[in-house]
């Protein structure tokens, strides 16, 4: 399981994903990769580079621009015994394959009385940034949690990227993997060999006694900066990196908040509905009388992701905004 004494190698998150695909494709002939530009070009973000050469056209396929069929064919292949890993170029395109994913693939195991399962991984990129704009830089990772039958992961570190993706490929259920646009290039140590991180387990990125901040993906790095600055001001922040958005690791979250008695949710996505609201709801449900104040939430402003830099800066939680909010609820 977790990296215990395993040798590690320093690499980018993008490489960690690639190594994981190579590793599992070599180990399990049922695994194959399909998506737009994934074969000859190696993927819009280079994650699948080299796989075509290593595993051939049968198992590494460029597809037409047909998101619904990419996910639908993958589900069909999964039903018939394979382990597809498909790439959807960015999360803004998930609505195009949403019917196949949430109404069919995700419900199939339950609705067939458990006779059929759909081991399917849908990788996609997310993240609002200057130049992306309204159709290319959404953060809808939090919007899929109301749909039963879907597992959702969002790795922050290269090690988790490997461990979670490997777990996802081996999971008998559909797993949606959100990869942060700005995280692909981030380096970190990655355990070699067979390394998995269980889906549904969060990680404490930083221990602290005064305030719990629950977040995920790229925001973990932003929040870590906040924690450092607050540390200098004598406020000890505990950071919970969700890693899995569905199922949520409420145990770890609640244990942390039970200790700090103050909680704040920070996310790149909208605070309305979805993940952020769910975290607030769960915490107040279980720890209402322990809490020193309401659970705070800091997230993206409720607007479509804009193109221009200043507009994006105003939309996405900044170190300053998060710190100010943290100080406010600490009452410092």
């Amino acid at each position, binding site marked *: 399981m977790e990296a215990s004494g395993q040798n590690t190698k320093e690499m980018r998150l993008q490489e960690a994903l690639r190594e994981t695909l190579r590793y599992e494709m070599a180990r399990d002939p049922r695994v*194959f990769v399909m998506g737009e530009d994934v074969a000859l070009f190696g993927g819009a973000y280079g994650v699948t580079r080299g796989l075509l050469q290593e595993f051939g056209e*049968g*198992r590494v*396929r460029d*597809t*037409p621009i*047909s998101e*619904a*069929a990419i*996910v*639908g*064919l*993958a*589900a*069909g*292949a*999964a*039903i*018939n*015994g*394979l382990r*597809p890993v498909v790439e959807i170029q960015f999360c803004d395109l998930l609505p195009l394959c949403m*019917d*196949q994913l949430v*109404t*069919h693939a995700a419900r*199939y*195991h*339950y*609705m*067939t*009385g*458990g*006779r*059929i*399962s*759909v*081991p399917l991984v849908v990788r996609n990129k997310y993240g609002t940034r200057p130049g992306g704009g309204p159709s290319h830089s959404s953060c809808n990772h939090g919007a899929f949690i109301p749909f*039963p*039958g879907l*597992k959702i992961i969002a790795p922050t570190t290269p090690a988790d990227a490997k461990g979670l993706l490997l777990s996802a490929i081996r999971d*008998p*259920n559909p797993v949606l993997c959100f990869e942060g646009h700005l995280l692909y290039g981030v380096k970190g140590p990655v355990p070699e060999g067979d390394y998995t991180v269980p889906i549904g387990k969060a990680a404490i990125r930083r221990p602290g006694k005064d305030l719990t901040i629950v977040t995920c993906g790229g925001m973990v790095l932003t929040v870590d900066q906040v924690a450092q600055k607050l540390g200098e001001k004598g406020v000890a922040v505990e950071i919970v990196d969700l890693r899995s958005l569905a199922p949520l690791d409420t145990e770890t979250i609640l244990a942390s908040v039970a200790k700090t008695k103050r909680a704040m949710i920070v996310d790149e996505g909208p605070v309305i509905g979805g993940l952020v609201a769910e975290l607030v709801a769960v915490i107040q449900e279980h720890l209402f009388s322990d809490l020193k104040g309401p659970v705070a939430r800091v997230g993206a402003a409720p607007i479509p992701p804009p193109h221009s830099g200043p507009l994006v800066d105003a939309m996405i939680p900044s170190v300053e905004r998060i710190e100010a909010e943290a100080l406010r609820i600490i009452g410092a």
Partner: protein
Amino acid sequence: MLDPIQRKEMLRTMIKVRAFEEKLTDLYQNKAMFGSTHSYRGQEAIAAGVCAALAPGDLIASYHRGTGHLVAKGADLYKLLCECMGRADGYSKGRGGKMHMGDLSFGFLGNTGTVGATVPFATGAALAAQIRGSGEIAISFMGDGAMNQGVVHESMNMAGLWKLPVIYVVENNLYAMTVSLEKSVAVKHLAERAAGYGFEGKTIDGNDADLVYEETSKAADKARRGGGPTLLECLTYRWDGHFGGDPGTAYRKREEIEQWKGRDPIRRLKEKLIAGNELTEADFDKMSKAAYAELEEVASKAVASPLPAAKAEVDDVFARE
């Protein structure tokens, strides 16, 4: 061409399919079911003809009007009827009803109530067969209305591109619910669309079981030999309303309905067999009685079978493996 014994089997299947539909309608009218039915009466030659051409390992995907396909592919009638009735012994434990089942033990990839939604599943199953080289082919049954769903277009394009071993069987019964074909498409034959995906499309008489068998066999051979997909548009008609409660006459002329009932696919095969001295009226009556008797027996057992317990099965949403 099938030999006499096989053709009689095909006839027996058609009778069984119809007997099942009529029993379902019974049960619906007697309020013995949850939800409704989508009667397959009138289209029996397609399910029977297609499935007669398949090898045991071959796969089918179905749709809302799917019970006929399941019976023809060899589903267990008790489990099937129980599922239609929302009983615990049903294929889906009562969770899915007639529109939501799946069981690979008899090559059934599944069906859903979303028009066109299983077309990519069948296509993807064929992709798996190609990647693995396992030799099975997949049948994608769909109605004429499904031809206008985006994901069906996307799937057929990929099947043509990769020469996947899949056969698209479009059961063109001239109506999508209450909307007639002329109000849905501007093309004369839906089969023409196959050309845009780089494979062959044929429009055939879907009430001629022998013909459906022949064309499916050809397409299946082609698919197994790596020749890629085929679209078979089978012209047919549903005798009954769209669903249990629909008389089917608000948007269809009575004459039209009668005309098509005159083209009864069962009677057609029966008469051909009798004309060829391969069947007697007596044989036919025996077959019929046997089929309806079997349904009676299965139905009485299903009616007496338990409903699922009233509990939210939250632990069964995810597969554990």
